[in-house]
């Protein structure tokens, strides 16, 4: 009967109140009152309302009692650890509560230190948990594809080196001839912006080509519609699949969109499928079209645009599959020596391949955050030790009065756990926010991770870290200060001063050593970043506004119409008072990297494998002048170059040297790999331009330029050299574009300087993050150094007083303090420098034009530490100086 009564107090409420409310009558009558009231609510508002009311009321009352007990404990005397009555039901909870309260009070007694420690620990735990949540998402979580372990990444290699993209005909051959894969797909690893016109409005979206079977290979079903079919992989089929976002935003999320027609760059495509919302494979794109052999990016064996992904057949091992494709590679080498002579395929598990692209950075960050946290934790330990030695008398009294070692240890443990709990909670909250920041330092978009929510695993990791930190740096040092023989401590009148001091000294040396390692790391990254930023991009990026203009699908259909459009645009823009010059190119440096093909000396064609690769750029007259790319020899494209019969080329200095090592490129004839044996005349040589951004070194500036007049295109990028701030002419640019043709979209307007900053954004953030971490470690180790010196000065006051009384020079006293401080800094350096030498090799892959054993970085760290170490020594030395011999001796 009682069980079916909806007004009955639930069992857990009874248990909770039993724990919180003292006194049987109080408790029982309270439960009775609640039940009676709940009964009344059942009649007025029904059983459900009554149950809800009961739960909340029980919680609120329990909270009141806990709060009352806390407040009561805060006011009276410190807890008496020896007064425990085993029969008292509340004794354990009470003493625990007292320990907690006492812990809070002793932390509150030094509010500045506690706040600083908390801040440091919160940041340390936060940074570690944040990096962990990235590591977890990127490296520990399985890829979101069914049976993901059988997915392999098939990287094309040249002479054994991963390219890693391969050609479409090669893909088709591997797919057909291999028996190891149940499915074998490919995708372009870059996206191409397209204009998509739906029934709603035109929009500029990211688009990629994928083989018809790619989604089937990955095992991801569309939420709507179907995959591409094999027939749609043939030339001529006009179909598209779209992302969930695109479906929602551009197609209104209607379920009947399948079969609807959308115009992609002016051509009607029929929509066959919508992918799920969490599907991102390598790229965040909105539209996929099927690869068609002979179609875009897939026309020849020498065009390498495809990343291949295979799914191993059941029971086929990676090694078996590798030897299978090796045989095919050898066959292809014999069949197509022109294009495949050195080509092969190398298989790795997909998860490993993706992880290896971000793994090193993630692990580096996590190791760094871990080291900072270790320094922070050891500072906590140092502080607790210092407090411990001053508290020895208190602890001895307690021990003498009968408190067991265990009881005192429990109290000290609770104290450090209180600090840890607050710091851990703060750290996990901070991590949630920091992980967003970390994602900007180490983007995981290749894994389809655009934002991160704290996972349960990461929270558990945070809790574990907190507990370990508390126990390792809180309780372990506490063990050293619990008196073994309290009577001796009491008799001598003060604690055994040496207890814990040696440990603290060791901690300071370790902190300095860790700071050295981190500082060297960040010094290397900062130097590398300075090198990156100091590079000459080859053109003048200041006051340059860039945008993309695509005429596909517009009214300008013929090449002549397009040429007229761009001529008019350039003329009208140049007439503006705010515009100095206008450059038009199919791809602008830094903004649009990629697109390289072979080019060679037309009069002395080399062997197929030795044809130099170069970026090809189609530029309109005035390009070099507007971009301020210096001319080295010959001339650039003048007006009317389109009327000349012979093709004209301008080469970059590097390319000219590659093709014509003897010099004198101007006037020679070159042949780009456009097919049909095209030959053109080199009319000029210009300085190199960093085409792909400042981060990539080597021969990436080999470029040849063709004239737009001779090779017109539909889509061009525009760069406008302005007189004032580049953004200021955007309204006029829009107005002119609108007048010329309102249907032509103006895409992605950016100042060139912003693009350059973006291209080195990641190294910048990386060196910034490392800099912050190492600065934190430096400050922490100095705080530790200062703390131990200050305490030593206090403890040696009597000695200093005596020395001064006996006629010691003040300088000697300062020397004693500074020597003991600098000895520790020196030892820290002695340990830290070799450790930094060993660990800086980890950074090798992140450094640009800086060796991991860069002497400047090492020397500057040593000088910096010595200098700031001296400063940290001076304050305590000053205090030692002011010791008045009379007072300090009388104190004894």
């Amino acid at each position: 009967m009682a069980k079916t009564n909806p007004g009955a107090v639930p069992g857990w409420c009874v248990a909770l109140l039993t724990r919180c409310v003292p006194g049987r009558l109080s408790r029982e009558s309270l439960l009775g009152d609640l039940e009676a009231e709940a009964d009344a609510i059942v009649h007025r508002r029904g059983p459900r309302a009554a149950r809800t009311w009961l739960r909340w009321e029980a919680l609120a009352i329990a909270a009141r009692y806990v709060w009352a007990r806390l407040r009561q404990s805060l006011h009276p005397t410190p807890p008496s650890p020896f007064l425990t009555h085993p029969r008292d039901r509340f004794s354990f909870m009470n003493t625990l509560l007292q320990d907690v309260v006492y812990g809070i009070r002793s932390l509150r007694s030094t509010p500045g230190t506690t706040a600083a420690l908390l801040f440091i620990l919160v940041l340390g735990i936060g940074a570690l948990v944040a990096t962990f949540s990235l590591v977890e998402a990127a490296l520990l979580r399985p890829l979101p594809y069914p049976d993901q372990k059988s997915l392999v990444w098939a990287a094309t290699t040249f002479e054994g080196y991963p390219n890693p993209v391969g050609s479409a005909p090669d893909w088709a051959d591997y797919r057909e001839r291999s028996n190891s894969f149940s499915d074998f797909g490919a995708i372009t690893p870059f996206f191409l912006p397209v204009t998509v016109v739906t029934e709603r409005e035109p929009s500029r979206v990211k688009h990629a080509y994928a083989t018809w079977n790619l989604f089937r290979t990955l095992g991801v079903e569309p939420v709507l519609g179907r995959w591409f079919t094999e027939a749609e992989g043939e030339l001529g089929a006009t179909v598209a699949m779209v992302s969930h976002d695109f479906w929602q935003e551009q197609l209104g999320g209607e379920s009947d969109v399948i079969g609807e027609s959308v115009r992609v760059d002016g051509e009607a495509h029929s929509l066959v499928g919508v992918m799920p919302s969490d599907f991102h494979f390598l790229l965040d794109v909105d539209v996929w079209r099927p690869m068609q052999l002979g179609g875009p990016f897939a026309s020849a064996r020498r065009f390498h645009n495809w990343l291949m992904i295979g799914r191993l057949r059941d029971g086929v091992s990676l090694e078996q599959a590798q030897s299978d494709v090796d045989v095919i590679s050898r066959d292809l080498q014999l069949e197509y020596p022109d294009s495949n002579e050195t080509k092969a395929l190398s298989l790795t598990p997909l998860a490993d391949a993706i992880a290896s692209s971000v793994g090193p950075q993630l692990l580096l960050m996590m190791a760094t955050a871990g080291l900072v946290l270790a320094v922070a934790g050891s500072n906590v330990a140092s502080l607790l030790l210092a407090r411990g030695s001053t508290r020895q008398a208190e602890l001895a009294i307690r021990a003498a009065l009968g408190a067991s070692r265990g009881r005192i240890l429990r109290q000290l443990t609770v104290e450090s756990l209180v600090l840890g709990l607050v710091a851990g909670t703060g750290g996990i909250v901070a991590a949630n926010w920091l992980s967003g920041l970390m994602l900007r330092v180490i983007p995981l978009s290749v894994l389809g991770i655009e934002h991160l929510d704290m996972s349960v695993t990461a929270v558990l990791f945070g809790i574990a870290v907190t507990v370990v930190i508390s126990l390792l740096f809180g309780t372990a040092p506490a063990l050293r200060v619990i008196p073994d023989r309290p009577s001796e401590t009491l008799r001598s009148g003060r604690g055994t001063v040496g207890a814990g001091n040696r440990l603290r000294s060791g901690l300071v040396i370790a902190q300095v050593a860790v700071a050295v390692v981190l500082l060297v790391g960040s010094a290397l990254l900062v130097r590398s970043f300075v090198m990156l930023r100091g590079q000459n991009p080859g053109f003048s990026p200041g006051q340059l506004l860039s945008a993309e203009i695509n005429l596909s699908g517009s009214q300008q259909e013929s090449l002549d119409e397009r040429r007229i459009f761009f001529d008019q645009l350039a003329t009208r823009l140049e007439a503006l008072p705010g515009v100095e010059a206008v450059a038009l190119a199919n791809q602008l440096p830094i903004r649009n990297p990629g697109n390289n093909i072979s080019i060679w000396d037309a009069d002395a064609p080399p062997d197929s494998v030795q044809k130099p690769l170069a970026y090809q750029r189609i530029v309109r007259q005035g390009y070099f002048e507007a971009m301020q790319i210096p001319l080295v020899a010959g001339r650039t494209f003048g007006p009317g170059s389109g009327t000349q019969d012979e093709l004209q080329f301008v080469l970059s200095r590097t390319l000219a040297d590659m093709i014509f090592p003897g010099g004198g490129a101007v006037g020679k004839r070159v042949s780009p790999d456009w097919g049909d044996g095209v030959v053109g005349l080199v009319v000029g040589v210009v300085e190199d331009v960093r085409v792909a951004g400042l981060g990539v070194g080597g021969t990436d500036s080999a470029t040849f330029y063709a004239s737009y007049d001779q090779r017109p295109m539909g889509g061009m990028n525009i760069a406008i050299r302005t007189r004032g701030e580049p953004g200021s002419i955007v309204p006029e640019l829009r107005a002119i574009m609108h007048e010329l043709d309102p249907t032509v979209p103006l895409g992605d307007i950016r100042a060139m300087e912003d693009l350059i900053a973006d291209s080195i954004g990641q190294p910048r953030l990386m060196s910034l993050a490392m800099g912050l971490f190492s600065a934190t470690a430096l400050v922490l180790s100095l705080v530790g150094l200062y703390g131990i010196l200050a305490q030593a000065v206090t403890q040696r006051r009597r000695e200093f007083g005596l020395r001064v009384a006996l006629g010691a020079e003040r300088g000697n006293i300062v020397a004693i303090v500074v020597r003991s401080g600098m000895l520790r800094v020196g030892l820290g350096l002695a340990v830290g420098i070799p450790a930094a030498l060993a660990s800086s090799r980890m950074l090798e892959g992140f450094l640009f034009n800086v060796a991991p054993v860069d002497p400047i970085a090492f020397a500057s760290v040593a000088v910096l530490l010595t200098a700031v170490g001296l400063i940290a020594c001076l304050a305590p030395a000053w205090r030692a100086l002011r010791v008045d011999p009379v007072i300090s001796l009388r104190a004894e």
Partner: protein
Amino acid sequence: MGRQNLLGSFEQMVLLAVRQVGEGAYAPTILERLQATMGRKVSRGAVYVTLDRLQRRGLLTSSSAPAEPGRGGRPRRHVQVTDEGIEQLEEVRAYLDSLWDGLDAVQED
């Protein structure tokens, strides 16, 4: 002679409500009385905690009324203000009265 711990205002109100309800006062009736007087919701937990505290300080006594149906067979806890409680209430009142003395006239100006 002044005390170290004067009654707080909520404590005074609870004690007075106990006296107002009179014989058989127990937590729900005290709560009801307080809410009626103050014209707003009063936390049930605060009343229980205060009753316990006042009893610990000897200002209230409590007695158990026999178990009755509708309460899961649980007793009621009837409370009564002790002489000490009455004394302290009057002491506070005297302080307050003397502090208020003459202020009403001033406020009317």
